[in-house]
């Protein structure tokens, strides 16, 4: 079933079409949300809300853009709202303090005797550092970086999702990488990685 057929049937209230939509685009939506919120459970929760919003507002969907572009937009907006809600209590925490706090959490939780426990823990710490560095990026840079890295979207596709020119996306990604590099170097100097 093509996207066009799914939309047409969904507009008529077909439950089968909704199932098809969820199954075919689940990974796309969950991955996008995960790239922004960095928590699997939260990402799945947000993704569920994305599909519910699509189901409720399918009548307003005009075929100006692709279904996937629309899904990306809703997923990004919902994830950013989730981050904003969670951020309120973290206003005064710096990036390094965030990393240190998360590392302490990992050290406390880490107790499973895996084959390479040291390697596992190192990777988890690296993941934390990277997530915190991505989280500390300005919103637009974070969205562009996430869509590029987690969803492997081209500059053109990102420009459609973010409703901006390709050159703006290029500039956003350039600045995102520069900032990320700066934050990782700062962290490396402070021995938190």
């Amino acid at each position, binding site marked *: 079933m093509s996207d066009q057929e799914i939309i047409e049937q969904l507009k008529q209230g077909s439950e089968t079409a909704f*199932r098809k939509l*969820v*199954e075919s685009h*689940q*990974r796309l939506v*969950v*991955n996008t949300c*995960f790239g922004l919120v960095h928590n*699997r459970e939260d*990402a*799945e929760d947000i*993704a*569920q*809300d994305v*599909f*519910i919003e699509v*189901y409720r507002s399918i009548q307003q969907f005009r075929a100006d853009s692709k279904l996937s572009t629309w899904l990306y937009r809703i997923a990004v907006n919902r994830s950013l709202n989730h981050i904003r809600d969670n951020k309120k209590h973290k206003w005064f925490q710096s990036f390094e303090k965030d990393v240190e706090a998360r590392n302490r959490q990992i050290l406390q939780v880490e107790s499973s005797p895996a084959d390479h426990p040291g390697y596992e823990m190192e*990777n988890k710490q*690296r*993941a934390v*550092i*990277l997530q915190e560095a991505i989280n500390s990026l300005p919103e637009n840079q974070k969205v562009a970086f996430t869509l590029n*890295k*987690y969803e492997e979207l081209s500059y053109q596709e990102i420009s459609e999702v973010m409703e901006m020119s390709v050159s703006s996306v290029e500039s956003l990604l350039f600045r995102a*990488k*520069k900032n*990320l*590099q700066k934050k*990782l*170097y700062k962290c*490396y100097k402070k021995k938190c*990685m």
Partner: protein
Amino acid sequence: MKCKAVHSKLIFFLERELPEPEMKAVREHLAACPECALFAEEMRKTLSILETEKVSEVNPYFYTRVKAKLDRQSEIQPSGIRSLVLVRVLQPVAFSIILILGVYGGVKMGATGAKTGSAFTAEQEMVPYLNEMDVEPLETFLME
């Protein structure tokens, strides 16, 4: 190429986004500078996490959960609207009425006080009491 210049280009070097001459210059610097090479290796390992982090497997219960959430939201929507009306409309209206009544009562009481208050002063109220003392001297009071 100096260390600082390499640090500013490292992420683009690792992503192979630099022009070939710059790629070569960074490669040569990393081969000669162990400090930068160490940071480059750390950076490479950290960025490689992005690949492993991607959600690859699909949750088999995802659709069931979406459907359940959708049904649940449809069920609770009428009562949700009721509680929203209660919180957003009725509560402010009730508080406004209480506030207006309070202000109105205060104004009324003040007006009544002003009307009657003009006839009596504190000094005047003391006069009958002092006069009574005159009428009944202390000696008489003690004798009784």
